[in-house]
């Protein structure tokens, strides 16, 4: 893999699952149904995607099954959190455990294997190029032989931006998250909007899972998401649910993961390199200007507190 020639394409490929997941998660987050099932939903979708592709020998079946898997997981989350009023954080983590268990269980029940599933019958997504855009000098590689999910991730984040800020439905979503009782008092059906948002998150997690298991590699392995769903959540939190911020954060995380993949070729311990994406998330969370400001205020108030207690002594 040449570092200079295709680096943008590699970044796009690595960013895509995080971006898809995070842009789906925006809806849940903004509508006030904090959704940490992204990790589990993506894992489950990457499994169902492989199942669809395996049995129907078609990548379209893979996409459909993947989306179905993602929606199923999120519908279950919706059922527990919205319908039965379970705690969002607890049920979401339980669902993540459940998805990890289910995929491992089904891998053994359906394919009689454990660990990794590689089979020639699994059909990957077909890469295609976009006619005119691929001829642009450097950026052209972004539009050359990429699978559908990558193009979709860019279109969808733009669509999300328009929807959230420019339409009535988007306003209603944000109103539900900000002040559910006020939203309900002006006639917005809060629960209905939250359900729609959770299901949209499911569709996007499904596509992210498909990108992971059928996009570049055509395989499934246990726990193959490796925390990408949580990185997507970090992207949402970092951007405070703003679509363009989520795009920027996802690309940042994608770059750090690409960097770690590239450095792996050099003579540095792979374990140090594998830490990079996760450390990057922590450091980026740390270096936000408003958080540094918060720290400054904190220290000042601590200082003045000490001052005042000294005085009173």
């Amino acid at each position, binding site marked *: 893999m040449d570092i200079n020639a295709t680096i943008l394409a590699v970044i796009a490929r690595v960013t895509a699952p995080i971006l898809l997941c995070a842009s789906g998660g925006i809806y849940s987050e903004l509508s006030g149904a904090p959704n940490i099932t992204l990790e589990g939903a993506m894992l489950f979708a990457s499994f169902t995607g492989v199942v669809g592709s395996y049995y129907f020998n078609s990548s379209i079946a893979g996409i459909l099954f993947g989306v179905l898997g993602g929606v199923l997981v999120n519908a279950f989350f919706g059922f527990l959190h919205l319908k039965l009023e379970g705690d969002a954080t607890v049920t979401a*983590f339980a669902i993540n*455990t459940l998805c990890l*268990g289910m995929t491992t269980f089904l891998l053994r029940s359906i394919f009689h294997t454990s660990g990794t599933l590689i089979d020639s019958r699994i059909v990957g997504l077909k890469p295609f190029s976009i006619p005119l855009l691929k001829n642009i000098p450097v950026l052209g590689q972004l539009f050359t032989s990429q699978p559908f999910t990558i193009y979709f991730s860019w279109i969808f984040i733009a669509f999300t931006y328009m929807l959230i800020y420019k339409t009535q439905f988007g306003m209603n979503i944000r*109103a*539900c998250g900000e*002040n559910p009782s006020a939203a309900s008092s002006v006639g917005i059906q809060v629960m209905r909007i939250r359900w729609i948002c959770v299901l949209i998150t499911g569709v996007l997690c499904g596509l992210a899972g498909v990108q992971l298991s059928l996009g570049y590699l055509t395989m499934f392995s246990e726990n193959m998401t490796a925390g990408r769903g*949580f990185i997507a959540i970090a992207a949402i939190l970092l951007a405070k649910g703003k679509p363009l911020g989520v795009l920027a954060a996802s690309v940042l995380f994608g770059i750090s993961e690409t960097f770690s993949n590239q450095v792996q070729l050099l003579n540095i311990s792979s374990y140090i390199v*594998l830490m990079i994406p996760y450390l990057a*998330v922590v450091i980026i969370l740390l270096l936000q200007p408003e958080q540094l400001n918060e720290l400054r205020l904190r220290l000042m108030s601590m200082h003045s507190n000490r001052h005042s207690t000294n005085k009173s002594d």
Partner: protein
Amino acid sequence: MLQKNSWGYGWLVLQHHIEQGELKMSLEFRQKPMKVRTVVGAIVIGILIGAVIVLLSGNNPAYVYAKLLKGSFGSAFAISSTLRWSTPLLFTAVASAISFRGGMFNMGVEGQLYLGAMAATIVGISYNGPHILTVVLCFMAAVIAGTLYALIPAFMRVYLKANEIVTTLMLNYVAINLTNYLTKTFFLSRDSMGDSLATRELYESAKLTKLVPPYSVTTGLLMGLLMVMLFYIYMNKSVKGYEVHISGVNPDFSRYGGISVDKVRISVMLISGAIAGLGGAAEIMGVQGRFISKFSPDFGFDGMLTALLGNSTPLGVTLSAIFMGALKAGALSIERTTNVSRALADVIKGIVICFVSVRTLGIFDRIKLPKFTRRKKSEVKEA
């Protein structure tokens, strides 16, 4: 001001809120007390759904569950296996429980456990003194490592308002890779086993004594129970524990009452990290005998689930640690004796916890009465 414009009413709600101040994020956790019947109901649902899944995979659920029960309580060996798997869960569950009680969601128990295990291993392979002294030194190293590693997310949460769920999760992956790196670079044993990295074996003086020699239960179990007892004394008999409880239940009220919630939050994270580190040390010194990469089959996450199932109370944590340990021991045995994957245990665990935080008793009347729920749809869900 309340007029519908072309955006609809949602816009008004938003504008009002933006005028009020910052948009807030919603990833907060506060544990609600649960009833015993809720927990029992959740376990029943988990086992029933597990049975359906086993049935769909083409196996006989009664047979599989009989094997599972036999593998967890059927013989002296089975019971010792259950206790062996319960031991690390006691540590990690107490670690999670104390952070939950203080209003923090420490998801980093796994990482703190790994670092604790690594620190104990480094002491255990380099110092060979009297048994008691070596063990104490190993445990101290583990406590220091776990505490320091928990300090990072605690500070980030309190001083930088960085969500601790995300930071601790990320730091888990960092810790696992870091310990792998340390093992591979500095402590790799020549007689490595398969493709997993391992250090050389601890000195005998650093290993925990077996309680009943042929079986694998060690004094680690007693340590775990001691943690539960200390947890009980801390939460129920001490002033600090009361402060932890109050700032977990109602941070604003406790600030008003003069409790420094920030200090409480940092201290629960540190205690949590220390106990998680001890758990890692007990696992290495009691069972593994050396540091092996990926030695923990998600003890940290399972500990969190155990604490949630046990409602973060000392007795609840103990009982649910035994339940989870039995599930694990049973699942390992069904994988050996039937063709059902041990992941069945994860499935059951997941479903049980899914239903723990919902109002289980409400499920049945809600499902039976669709008209009733439809009328409630427009009603706003309380946060």
